[in-house]
């Protein structure tokens, strides 16, 4: 199952919940304000670094760009995908769960 998250981790606990309620090894795609979770040196960076070792974490490039986040500022191991990558993830996984 593909899990998507679209809320800022600094404002809502959707990202934490997506981690808690997804099986290890699942794909988690961060879109819209959830892309802020990928920032290194943040107060939640430790959680995210840990998540990278248990899940495949992706961020949507157009949403990163809109918010002025450069790839160099992201936690290592997080993979950047475009809209095509989003579609591929959705096709690869039979279902999509959107944590709002």
């Amino acid at each position, binding site marked *: 199952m593909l899990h998507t998250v*679209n*809320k*800022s981790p*600094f*404002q809502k606990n959707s990202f934490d919940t997506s981690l808690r309620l997804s099986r290890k090894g699942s794909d988690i795609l961060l879109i*819209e*304000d959830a892309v*802020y979770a990928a*920032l*290194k*040196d*943040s*107060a939640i*960076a430790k959680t995210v670094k840990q998540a990278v070792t248990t899940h495949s974490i992706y961020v949507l*490039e*157009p*949403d990163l*760009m*809109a*918010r*002025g*986040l*450069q790839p160099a*500022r992201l936690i290592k191991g997080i993979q950047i995908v*475009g809209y095509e990558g989003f579609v591929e993830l959705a096709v690869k996984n039979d279902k999509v769960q959107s944590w709002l």
Partner: protein
Amino acid sequence: MGAIKKFMYINRTAPYGSIYSLEGLEVALIGAAFDQDVSMAFVDDGVFQLKKGQDTSKSGMKNFSLAYSALGDYDITKLYVEKESLQARGLTVEDLMPLTYEDQDDDYQEKPSIRVVDSEQLADIIAEQDVLLNY
């Protein structure tokens, strides 16, 4: 109109994910027409509004971050950014747009509009306000 009042717009939301930050900016620009003492505070995810290098070309949204550079033209020259909010997000003042205004009382010298303050200082500034508007 009566005496000049201190208006502060408190921005606590990230841009694009919701309409709040654009609304807050537009209301501040509209309100600037009323010759009051206007300031803006950027707290929590609101600090992301000022992140430099925003590029919406691939997401099809309007890049309204450019409009913050016009705040000086609208005589909105005090943009308070909470230090603790920046730190929690792994950001420093260098990550923010270099916003400036021309000081009419000082030979139109260009000066920075962004003032990074800690929570205690911001609490004092908030306590001095007459009107607080939240976005």
